[in-house]
């Protein structure tokens, strides 16, 4: 039973992780068309992808978008999470439901609705449209993760600070924030990754010539048969591995997922 269990578990993990190993191997094929197993191993396509101007500008746009949307979602989400946990206002559950609602709806629907009823009527530039959508999509994660770390924070140290004469704002800055620092960092990392990887909402909101990196990858997948998409996927996979591994070591990221 034990051995059988181990074999089954090993096979399931092979199914979960295996494809990433395959694409990493495929990225080092030296030929002109994507083949597996790879031969003439080379860094040709990895270098080609890094030096590609289009991919570079898409990458920078995706990073800028993810950073901006993460800050906005945290700026909106941290105060809301704090008020809901500490003051437990009437209707707290309804407010929580409202704030987490974007996560249950398909990104395509969010993108379509924003495009037709906000972006086009207000004539918003592509970057602003993406920022508006991504902030709404990240807010549920920010509220949930920050709430979880606030729930473990003792309320009496906050009361002590206020009784000793600290203003509410000073109390929040010098007592609450340092204590939920790990939760806020975890929320920031999860938000950044979510925004950087987002495709469905961005599909409708990107304009001609302005694409996020994953949307550009989606679109060129059908046109490109060389290993460049595999090389790009490999770079993203390795970068994510490094970030997640570091975050797990420093913050225990998996507790917040």
């Amino acid at each position, binding site marked *: 039973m034990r051995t059988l269990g181990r074999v089954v578990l090993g096979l399931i993990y092979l199914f979960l992780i295996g494809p990433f190993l395959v694409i990493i191997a495929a990225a080092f094929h030296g030929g002109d068309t994507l083949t*597996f197993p790879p031969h003439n191993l080379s860094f040709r396509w990895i270098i080609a992808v890094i030096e590609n101007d289009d991919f570079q500008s898409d990458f920078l746009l995706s990073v800028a978008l993810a950073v901006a949307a993460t800050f906005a979602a945290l700026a909106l989400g941290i105060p809301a999470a*704090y008020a809901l946990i500490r003051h437990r206002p009437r209707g707290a559950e309804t407010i929580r439901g409202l704030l987490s609602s974007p996560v249950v*709806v398909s990104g395509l629907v969010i993108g379509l609705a924003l495009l037709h009823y906000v972006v086009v009527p207000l004539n918003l530039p592509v970057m602003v449209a993406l920022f508006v959508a991504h902030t709404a999509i990240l807010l549920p994660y920010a509220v949930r993760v920050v709430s979880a770390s606030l729930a473990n924070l003792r309320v009496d140290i906050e009361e002590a600070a206020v009784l000793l004469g600290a203003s509410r704002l000073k109390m929040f800055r010098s007592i609450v924030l340092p204590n939920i620092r790990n939760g806020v960092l975890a929320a920031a990392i999860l938000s950044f990754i979510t925004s950087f990887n987002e495709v469905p909402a961005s*599909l409708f909101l990107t304009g001609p010539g302005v694409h996020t990196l994953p949307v550009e*990858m989606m679109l060129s997948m059908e046109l490109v048969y060389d290993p460049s998409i595999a090389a*790009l996927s490999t770079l993203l996979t390795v970068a994510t*591995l490094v970030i997640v591994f570091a975050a797990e070591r420093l913050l225990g990221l998996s507790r917040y997922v």
Partner: protein
Amino acid sequence: MERDGGSLTTRAMSASGRAVAILVTPATAYVTLAFLLPVAVLIAGTFQPNGALSVSGYARFFSEPLYLEALWRTIRIGVVVTAICIALGYAMALAIVGAKASARGQLIGLTILPLMISPVARTYAWVVVLGHSGLLNGLLVALGLTDQPFRILFTEGAVYVGLVQLFLPLMVLPLVSALENLPADVISAARSLGAGWGTVFWRVLLPLTREGLVIGGTIVFNGTVTAYITPAVLGGTRHLTLATLLYQQVAVTDDLLSAGVAATILIAMSVAASMVLRRVAATRSRLS
């Protein structure tokens, strides 16, 4: 004295009410304006295709064989993927909870890893594995099991494979926390009293982990029916789901009314799934 106390409490309460309003309003206003209202207008628009109230958009949607096929395929994929994830999820969660404490953290880390990696990279990896001259067909030909490569990519089966890989971690995590909360030795107690593994699962494990099962199941079902990248890349254009149909209606045929109807049906499914979740959460807070 009493009046002072009263006014003090009222003042404190209204101060805290104002604080709550200041802290919460930016977030609620943002979600309302950037998400709720546009989506509500989109839904309302599907009932007034030409300005007047009408369900003609829905009548057209439900009389078009291609659209109905996409709807049934979406529901079928949702049910099958959720069922597979539940079966594999229990196997994984039991193994993770049964592992040594040191290995447990690493196994959970390995479980969440695929969730973090770019879904486009993840899906493209399946193209390399399942494609016409991909890894799997290469293996089958090399082993002499077939002369001609199979068509695996661009089938409904490929969509199942991709979606199970994507959503299995989201089934495992709630099951692991449900199993961790189980009273110690409940399984070995049932075993020593003579219950077979089947009885242990149906009579002991399932009822005690029902909450984790429902939470994971609704997340997986909702994620599966709304998924876009996986059916678009692995299913191809001949195996449309509601999500890929919606994209085509906007990007290719410019049929905004049908796209709105598809969007509304998708939202109805998501709302139904999250209502199931709510009910479970409500039962839990009543019990505790």
